[in-house]
């Protein structure tokens, strides 16, 4: 009985978080794309029946792809970071064997059909130079006691082989001067002469090659030892065959691949792309340099851009017409992967750079032409500064007639079926790239670390355009985690009818470190004169709260001497901006400085004045800064207590949270959270977490903060929650100023919760007006995307008697119910970040999760209160209302007839 009761109580306690998805809703609002990452090694299955290829990538993924389509058949994700970095793959008949890790090396065998792990053994080694497989034996080349030692192992069992060879240490002199190909080590000696020695038997002699060079590269996957030697920009192919060295000079810079065609014949394949549209392939017999016509072609592709192609693996066969046909797996500089059928075309291609998105933004689409015409006619001048509203009566009349005629035409066309309503096939076309009624259709602009920008349709996940940032500049670097960083600002949004939207990327010039601005249209990726070199290096950029006369949101740029500049310069602003306070935090020396800038309306000649500075001394270093989303609106200014009084929220738009981490002798590491006012420089509040370490995530929204960290003492992930209140009185309800007035410190409520899992990313939902309650999206290492209502993380969850209505009593563990996992069975691995943006529907928030997989969905934290459910029965309601109307009339008539009859009685 008690057990039943407990079960019932448990079930009821989950009623209000049951936010799950119905089975038929799966995939309706969401999509997921699986990727594998930049390909490092690959192999094409020789067995024609299975038609597969196997890849190992820089994202530590082993996967099998279908040759015909490029779809992933199976995918296995190894350890993160250097622990799982794949150093070698070796295909056997039934298994793919991978070698991963740096010091503790794991050798694993994966089933070719389904990717199941067959075996695993590990090996602890140090000073490893190379790994290679020869005759089914794994060779470990390492340096030890002034010697080069080669150990051999049976690759499937890990049993050490009998043979161990040693070579003199002078054979190897640095990774930049040596290369290993097919068991042979080639090195430049001190006189820049090339020496080649085989490491597969004990008594080999060095082969001296009479060639000079300054760079050496092994040809990947070559069956015979083959190297490319560069000497003063001239490339030569050096290969050994039957202990003889052959040298072949190369005409052009191309990626090479050697394929064993017959026992003693090899095919040399070359691929190059002199311009981004053309792809040149050349095939020849390695030994006698006869050109194979069927493999030599020059193709022009208008639809895609190819830069620096290189062949990863090849499979060749003889066709019925007795010509040689090959398929080559080609990788490019922008990390895309394609299968080239020679002779012929590109069969498929995958954009693998989408696994390394470093900045993303969802951008509103412009309104359709008809709506634009209406807006032009009726739009007031204040919101649409940029077009000329016609004022003459006649011209307005003509305008009206014209726009109504256009509307009529579209209506008729839609009715007659000439214009199709947007369907999945036509969604990506240009005519459909218009804003929908609810603002749910947007474009995802993603910048990847490969230097490629993508425009992705958020409803279908289709790539609409891509731009390669080749030669424009390099990315900034994040000093905290060493990752690449690219600031992106939407300086003109889609609301301005006569101007196209504009986004600006901040890049660094490769030579001078000065900033390069790349401006493009985020809707179609076009950029006209988009590259602008600045004569200084931008260290911080802050958008102004006012637009300039071109409807561009101007940016205040700080150069390295902290001198402010306006971008775009020479364009006056539409109104005088209020004083801007800019803080700049330096993670290397722990200095945070605050500046004030007073931008004149002309936008010319202004200077910055330092107003405050804060120094965090070594060994404390700043690891994160959390500021509120600039788009965020807060609807409710307070919180209702149980006695119906109001606890007013402390909403300081200038407050930023600064997280510092310092090593400590007692507590290992100490995490400190400072709440700093960016205008006055006052530290509003500080709190210390002892024994807290990475991974640390910080969320700052409304009047609350969440900080997740790993607690070393209790060995679990904890989320500390803070909330700031003004108390029962609002000091100034009409305006908020960080300076002047009474500076009453806020009341800080705090509480910590335990998350049964490990976080990869955390982000709050955001809606247009801020009426909808907030949920926190958490990506866990297990691949779940958890939607946690903020009320679970509320620091005011009562310990004893509930203080407020609807408050959940404090329980330290956060629930992780399967209904609240919004990605249901689509696991998201290696999540780098979550991006949330409001739609025009107050209830709905759009979510884009990126990492190894891309996932897009939409969430409604307070349920979809402003739209009818999609399964709403329109038919029933129409029938019911018509029946009611008819019956009302009928009964009215009947009633009057009856009354008449009664009167005659």
């Amino acid at each position: 009985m008690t057990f039943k009761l407990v079960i019932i109580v448990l079930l009821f306690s989950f009623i209000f978080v049951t936010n799950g998805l119905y089975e038929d809703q799966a995939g309706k609002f969401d999509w997921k794309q699986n990727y594998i990452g930049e390909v490092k090694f690959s192999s094409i299955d020789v067995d024609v029946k299975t038609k597969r290829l196997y890849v190992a990538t820089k994202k530590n993924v082993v996967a099998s792809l279908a040759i015909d389509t490029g779809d992933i058949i199976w995918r296995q994700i190894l350890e993160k970071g250097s622990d799982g970095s794949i150093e070698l793959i070796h295909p056997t008949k039934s298994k793919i064997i991978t070698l991963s890790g740096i010091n503790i090396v794991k050798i694993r065998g994966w089933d070719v059909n389904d990717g199941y792990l067959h075996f695993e053994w590990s090996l602890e080694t140090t000073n490893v130079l190379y790994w290679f497989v020869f005759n089914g034996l794994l060779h470990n080349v390492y340096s030890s006691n002034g010697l080069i030692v080669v150990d051999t192992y049976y690759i499937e069992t890990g049993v050490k082989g009998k043979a161990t060879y040693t070579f003199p240490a002078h054979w190897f002199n640095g990774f930049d001067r040596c290369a290993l190909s097919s068991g042979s080590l080639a090195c430049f000696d001190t006189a820049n002469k090339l020496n080649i020695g085989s490491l597969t038997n004990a008594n080999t002699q060095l082969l001296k090659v009479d060639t000079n060079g300054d760079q050496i590269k092994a040809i990947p996957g070559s069956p015979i030892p083959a190297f490319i030697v560069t000497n003063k920009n001239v490339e030569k192919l050096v290969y050994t065959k039957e202990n003889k060295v052959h040298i072949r000079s190369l005409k052009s810079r191309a990626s090479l691949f050697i394929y064993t065609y017959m026992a003693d014949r090899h095919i040399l394949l070359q691929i190059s792309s002199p311009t981004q549209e053309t792809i040149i392939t050349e095939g020849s017999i390695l030994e006698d340099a006869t050109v194979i016509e069927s493999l030599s072609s020059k193709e022009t592709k208008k639809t895609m851009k190819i830069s620096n192609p290189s062949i990863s693996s090849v499979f060749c066969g003889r066709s019925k017409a007795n010509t040689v046909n090959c398929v080559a797996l080609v990788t490019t500089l922008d990390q895309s992967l394609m299968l080239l059928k020679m002779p012929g075309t590109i069969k498929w291609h995958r954009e693998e750079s989408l696994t390394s998105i470093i900045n993303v933004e969802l951008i509103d689409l412009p309104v359709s032409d008809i709506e634009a015409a209406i807006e032009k006619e009726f739009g007031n001048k204040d919101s649409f500064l940029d077009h000329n509203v016609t004022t003459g009566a006649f011209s307005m009349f003509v305008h009206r007639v014209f726009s109504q005629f256009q509307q009529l035409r579209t209506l008729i066309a839609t009715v007659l079926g000439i214009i199709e309503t947007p369907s999945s096939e036509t969604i990506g076309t240009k005519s459909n790239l218009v804003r929908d009624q609810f603002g749910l259709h947007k474009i995802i602009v993603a910048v990847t670390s490969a230097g490629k920008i993508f425009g992705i349709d958020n409803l279908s996940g289709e790539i609409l355009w891509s731009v390669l940032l080749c030669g424009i500049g390099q990315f900034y670097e994040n000093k905290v985690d060493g990752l690449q960083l690219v600031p992106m600002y939407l300086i003109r949004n889609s609301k301005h009818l006569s101007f196209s939207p504009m986004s600006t990327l901040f890049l660094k010039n490769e030579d001078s470190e000065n900033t390069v601005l790349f401006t493009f249209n985020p809707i179609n990726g076009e950029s006209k004169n988009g590259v602008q070199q600045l004569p200084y290096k931008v260290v911080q950029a802050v958008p102004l709260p006012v637009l300039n006369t071109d409807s561009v949101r101007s940016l205040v740029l700080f150069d390295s001497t902290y001198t402010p500049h306006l971008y775009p310069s020479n364009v006056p602003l539409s109104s005088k901006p209020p004083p801007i306070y800019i803080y700049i935090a330096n993670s290397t020396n722990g200095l945070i400085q605050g500046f004030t800038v007073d931008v004149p309306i002309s936008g010319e000649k202004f200077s910055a004045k330092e107003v405050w500075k804060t120094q965090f001394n070594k060994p404390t270093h700043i690891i994160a800064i959390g500021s509120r989303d600039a788009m965020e609106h807060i609807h409710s200014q307070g919180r209702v207590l149980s006695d119906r009084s109001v606890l007013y929220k402390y909403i300081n738009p200038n407050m930023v949270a600064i997280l510092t981490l310092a090593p400590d002798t007692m507590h290992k590491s100490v995490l400190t959270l400072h709440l700093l006012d960016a205008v006055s420089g006052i530290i509003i509040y500080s709190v210390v977490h002892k024994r807290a370490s990475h991974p640390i995530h910080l969320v700052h929204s409304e009047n609350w903060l969440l900080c997740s960290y790993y607690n070393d003492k209790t060995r679990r992930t904890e989320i500390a929650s803070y909330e700031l209140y003004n108390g029962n009185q609002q000091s100034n309800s009409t305006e908020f100023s960080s300076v002047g007035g009474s500076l009453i410190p806020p009341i800080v409520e705090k509480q910590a919760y335990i998350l049964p899992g490990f976080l990869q990313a955390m982000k709050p939902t955001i809606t247009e007006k801020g009426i909808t309650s907030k949920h926190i999206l958490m990506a866990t290492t297990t691949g779940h995307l958890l939607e946690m209502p903020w009320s679970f993380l509320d620091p005011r969850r009562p310990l004893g008697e509930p203080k407020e209505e609807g408050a959940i009593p404090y329980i330290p563990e956060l629930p992780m119910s399967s209904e609240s996992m919004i990605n249901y069975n689509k696991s998201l691995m290696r999540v780098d970040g979550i991006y949330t943006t409001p739609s025009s529907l107050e209830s709905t928030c759009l979510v884009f999760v990126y990492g190894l997989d891309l996932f897009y969905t939409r969430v409604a934290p307070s349920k979809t209160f402003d739209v009818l459910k999609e399964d709403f029965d329109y038919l029933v309601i129409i029938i019911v209302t018509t029946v009611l109307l008819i019956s009302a009339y009928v009964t009215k008539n009947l009633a009057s007839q009856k009354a008449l009859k009664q009167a005659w009685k």
Partner: protein
Amino acid sequence: MTASKNKNFKWSLDFTKNKHERSTDIANPPGYTQLSSQNGTELAKEGDSNRLIIKKSWDIALGPLKQVPMNLFIMYMAGNSISIFPIMMVGMLIVRPVTALFSLNTTFKTIEGTQVWGQKFIFFIGNIINIILALYKCQSMGLLPTHPSDWLAFIEPPIRMEYSGGGFVLS
């Protein structure tokens, strides 16, 4: 008399009317006077009916006050929970005195007398007491917007006086 006859037989046509007019005019029985039965008592009770009117109108005037204990009982029974029946009851408690106040003049139209002002005043006071009671009920049920939390949704967010921005040094 013909009128009364006509009234009794509405649909009958008296074709004999002209011929037998006289014969139909029957004299009253002896000792019957038409006015004696009515006028005698009326005149006797002239002062009494006036007193009755005043009494009746005082009844009307004191009606709302008499309802007060009943209303208190209803309120007590309704409880403080907000559900459909208590809300209906409270609604009735408010609506009735308010409509009574609006129809004050029509209620006292038929009543004339020297005490009419006093009666009106008492009637008014009684209804006001009822309204106050109903409002007290609303207050105890938490239906009156008397707390700052009731006006929270209308508070505009404060205007920002300074703008700030920034972040890590880009390097």
